[in-house]
């Protein structure tokens, strides 16, 4: 059974700055389009309710409670990237260390 998870960090103006695919994917091309579709749908939902709540984790999209910890950990990692004075906010995250850590976390929580 193929179970893939696609994790994408999107910056303002809907530009993806980080993507990771975890798990075994059988058909890569189909999955890529599907991911974009789902991503855009999710962004629409998020945009609608983003300004009504002051919480960071939006329950509408996050149906699995154990993902909250995963998101918190990745958020911490992202803040550490952001603190890098040489990192321009909104640009692609190219650090391989970040990549390794996120995949490790994904394996642990997904």
């Amino acid at each position, binding site marked *: 059974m193929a179970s893939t998870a696609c994790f994408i960090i999107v910056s303002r103006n809907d530009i993806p700055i980080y993507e990771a695919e975890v798990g075994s994917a059988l058909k890569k091309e189909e999955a890529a389009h599907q991911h974009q579709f789902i991503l855009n749908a999710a962004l629409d939902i998020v945009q609608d309710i983003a300004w009504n709540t002051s919480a960071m984790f939006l329950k509408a999209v996050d149906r699995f409670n154990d993902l909250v910890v995963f998101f918190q950990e990745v958020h911490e990692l992202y803040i550490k990237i952001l*603190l890098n004075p040489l990192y321009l906010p909104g640009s692609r995250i190219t650090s391989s260390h970040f990549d390794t850590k996120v995949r490790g976390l994904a394996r642990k929580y997904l």
Partner: protein
Amino acid sequence: MPVWYFSNLTFCFLNYPCLLNNSTIVPDASMTVSQSSLVSVLSNTLTLCSRSQKKKKKPLFTDLSIWDSLFLSDLYLSTEHSALNPKEEFVFGLESKARHRSNCVYFILKLQHQAPQPPLRLRRKGEEGRNDDRSKQEVSLSAFAFLFSELVQYNQTQVDNIAELERRLEDAGYAVGARVLELLCHRDKGNRRETRLLGILSFVHSTVWKVLFGKVADSLEKGTEHEDEYMISEKELLVNRFISIPKDMGTFNCGAFVAGIVRGVLDSAGFPAVVTAHFVPMEGQQRPRTTILIKFAEEVLRREARLG
């Protein structure tokens, strides 16, 4: 690939020729970092510099972006530079372009090779009581004043007019603001965002000011003439304390740096605004008050009206 973390920010003033010749170092007497740690960092740096001179590798110089991380005591840098030996300490600095001075300001940042599980945590809830933590978050005022003055002077040599100088200082502050927002949001507010105008303004006025300057801002006012204007006033901005503006510079205010910080915070929170710093003369007082004027964009007011 080793990952490098900046663990301490140490300032020191060196004579540039002396750095390479291994001769006397004259640290600033008013600094509050411990003398022994300073000497140890310096001696390591000199060894490293002389070593890299031999290897013909230049120390890494960065642009003004290093100044951005000034206020943050937890710094993070990840580099894939495999040529660096994990045990070495590294000089990362900015050479002052003001040629009339023979001094250079260097940030000597001690890089340490981290184990796979980084002990650096952003949460500080349980650690506020400890003294060593507190000392890590403070930087000596004189060091900062010197640093800021070098920042202004460096920019002065790069631009032709005052407006450009103000813009550069603002841009430097903008990057600080963006990072401060994320950090504070995570650290102090437990991951809750501000969605309302008054909320974000009071966040800037109290939390941000407290973290950056050690006290809340003097006052927060709403403009009487326009709906979209707000003002944060301060009797004397910390960054302006050792700066006096010559008459031929007119209305220039180094508080543009702080205005940039505020703009960075507001912009990253989703409240685009134009932020400027002004001197407001006060009756009965010698030095004028500084006011940070915040003018929000149209969409912010529309959204506020929609949210009711």
